[in-house]
């Protein structure tokens, strides 16, 4: 039986079963009914490592366009003050790249590099996402990516404490160990920060079972601050996780997705010096282009996933 292991992205999420149902439903809207096609699914759920409790029913981070769900992502960045050396320098660099500190209500004081060479400056500035919402999301992203890459400690609930990278790596590898017992093909589909986690495990964790196909969606893997901090050290010419991924890697992005910086990553993750990652652009509607549900409802994404699953 084919199987898809999902890995969710930044910010808090609904509880695991609901999140899995939401993602399957979106894929179904895009024309890919995984259960109907005999494909089982599972979720590497790590939101509870960072947040005390799941989003309540009816409260969805995906509804960020309406300003909902942003209250609990307005992170306090005081933790940055305690960093030192290279770690602090890197976080400050990323902070600038993400425009976290822009003060003006409309983000006018943030002059980002165009996230994609095909996006005109005018087009990029026309992103209708309210800046205060975007800034909150970027803060959450900054925290998640830092805590993971530098294996920081998270204490989401009284008495519970996690080494973030170590624990999430364990979650990922454990889930893949279960899922890889299916006949296959076995595909990992990760979104947002989930792509950083899945890539790190598939590339850098020897105990991680290999998969047959890999899909990254709305990924920040193109950020130099991300790939410069992998351990072992990132080398673009051999960055493809050849041991962990036996088949294709499809990277799906929306060029106006504020998290998918440098959205086209094929030239950042070469396989023996050759471009093999397939970058695939989609256009999500509305203001919040990073929405996993919007990505999964894209027919072309569904077609690529169906191909990875050999349906």
């Amino acid at each position, binding site marked *: *039986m084919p199987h898809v292991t999902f890995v969710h992205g930044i910010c808090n999420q609904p509880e695991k079963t609901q999140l899995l149902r939401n993602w399957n439903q979106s894929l179904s809207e895009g024309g*890919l009914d995984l*259960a*109907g*096609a*005999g*494909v*089982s699914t599972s979720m590497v759920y790590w939101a509870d490592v960072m947040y005390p409790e799941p989003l309540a029913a009816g409260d969805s981070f995906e509804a960020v366009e309406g300003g909902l769900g942003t209250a609990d992502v307005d992170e306090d960045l005081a933790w940055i003050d305690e960093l030192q050396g290279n770690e602090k320098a890197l976080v400050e660099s990323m902070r600038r790249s993400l425009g976290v500190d822009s003060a003006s209500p409309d983000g006018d004081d943030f002059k980002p590099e165009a996230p994609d060479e095909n996006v005109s400056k005018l087009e990029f500035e026309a992103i209708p996402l309210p800046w205060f919402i975007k800034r909150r999301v970027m803060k959450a992203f900054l925290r998640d990516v830092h805590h993971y890459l530098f294996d920081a400690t998270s204490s989401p609930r009284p008495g519970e404490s996690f080494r973030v990278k170590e624990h999430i790596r364990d979650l990922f590898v454990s889930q893949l160990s279960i899922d890889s017992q299916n006949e296959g093909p076995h595909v990992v589909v990760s979104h947002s920060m989930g792509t950083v986690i899945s890539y790190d495990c598939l590339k850098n964790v020897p105990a991680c079972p290999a998969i047959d196909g890999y899909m990254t969606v709305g990924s920040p893997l193109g950020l130099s601050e991300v790939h410069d901090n992998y351990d072992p050290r990132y080398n673009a010419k051999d960055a493809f996780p050849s041991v962990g991924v036996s088949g294709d890697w499809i990277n799906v992005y929306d060029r106006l997705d504020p998290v998918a910086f440098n959205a086209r990553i094929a030239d950042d993750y070469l396989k023996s010096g050759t471009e093999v990652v397939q970058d695939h652009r989609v256009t999500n509607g509305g203001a919040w282009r990073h929405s996993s549900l919007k990505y999964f409802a894209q027919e072309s994404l569904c077609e690529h996933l169906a191909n990875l699953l050999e349906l």
Partner: protein
Amino acid sequence: MDASALVRELERAARTFDRAGVALQCETLTADLWVQARPLELQDAKAVLDILRRKRYFALMIDVAEALIQTGQDAPRIRRLYAQALIDSDQTVAALAVLRVLRQDCEAQGDAAELAEALGLIGRAHKQIYVTARSAGSEGDVGRHLLAAIDSYAVPFDAAAGLNLWHGINTVALLCRAQRDNIEIDSPPIDIGTASKAILAHIKALTTPEIWDCATAAEACVAMSDYSQALEWLGRYTSSAAVDAFECASTLRQFEQVWQLDHSEPPQAALLHTLRAALLALEGGELRLEHALDEVSSAQGFLHDAGQLQQRDNTQFEKVFGGDRYKSFKWYVDGLNQARAVAVIEDAVGNGHGTGFLLPGSDVHPSISDEWVLVTNAHVLSDDPAEHAGSPSALPPDEVQVRLEASDTPDATYEIEAILFSSGRTELDCTIATLSEPVACEQSFRISKHLPLADGQQRVYVIGHPGGGKLSFSLHDNFLLDHEVPRLHYRAPTEGGSSGSPVFNSTWRLIGLHHAGGSKMGKLNGEAGVYEANEGISMTAIIEAVAAALG
């Protein structure tokens, strides 16, 4: 008797389509009613009948209502539900007898609300008799039923127009029907144009119209030949989560049988397709194609027009196809297209014997190229004398003719040239044959490599010719129950004659060949016990068997 517990258990059984469980609860209830000192409380009696009505257990509803009334629970509401079940079971004469007494009682007691409902049902019974008789080509004096229906609907509408909109719109619909059928009415109770406008205005003024209001508004627009606005109202109606298959089917019947909308006229066909698409997607729905080819072509045309509208006027498009309606409509048309490759298998004189379907030969085995093959059950078509002697008996190849009702040549018949593969009814129950002349089939099924997950949530769809009749999509209670190679069990109840039908998953990929059904089917995967189920044979298992046989 713990009535609350019984209602809860009945609700559970009905929700999970546990027919045997529903029947058992009803049996227990009727037995208990006779030993109770007092009649069942009205609230509990109503709850039981409502559950049975929602899930269309009309025969059980009649049995329970009989017992309730006989044991003293004969409140107007119960008698009305009883009459409703009789009408839904086509026992209209019996229903009218019940309703006449109910009407008199309501008049005597001054119960205006129940009187309006009783009159509405009397109108519905007469309407049904009239429509059925006309459809059967009756030349007798059936016009009196139409007049009786109009009278019954008009009275409550006239008494309280703002409250009894469904009576009003039925009066309008039947007056229009009378005009089309040249039935003269001396003094019409209402003016069609005035009443239609008033009904529509009333609904437009509502802050949050109920779903029935939306259907009524659509009918009012049809009465005014404003099909575009009717489509918008139907869009609101079909996108409501409150609409179930039974209600949707009732609305479709009203547009087909009373309004007689023409599927060859695009503006009218659009209304029918919108309702059919919604019905096909609803749990428990049923769709039967009276004119398969025309309806498939018409739906394709409507889909094309919808695409054009999207490019030309996105605002209007959103009104009609907003949300997921466009996607569900595409899915519906995709489903209709599958019907093009579904064949009725007839005996030498044209009597329907079973169903089959065409596949490109190369999909079945690489050695069969450049021709379509017919796939059906061995108990439908076989050259094995043991299959001819079996019950039901298979037809030999030289006594079979094949027609593709939804193809471009629905009247063309094909003979069997040769049987390439056959596996008996106790094994894969499959025959694969070539046809005597080339077939111009435009639809090629996509075969799913895997069966859907057996998690109790997956639906399957069977397209066939039940009873050898019209093409039908079987959608009742169509959940996949379980599978164990090569068999799959599902609840879609198919009538006799559906043998040999293709079974599809939710995205119209072929997963199996339907071959049997029964109320006591043994469970799969080593589970003890039996259940009501249909059984299909996995298509991939058949293809593997063909590969093993042909090399």
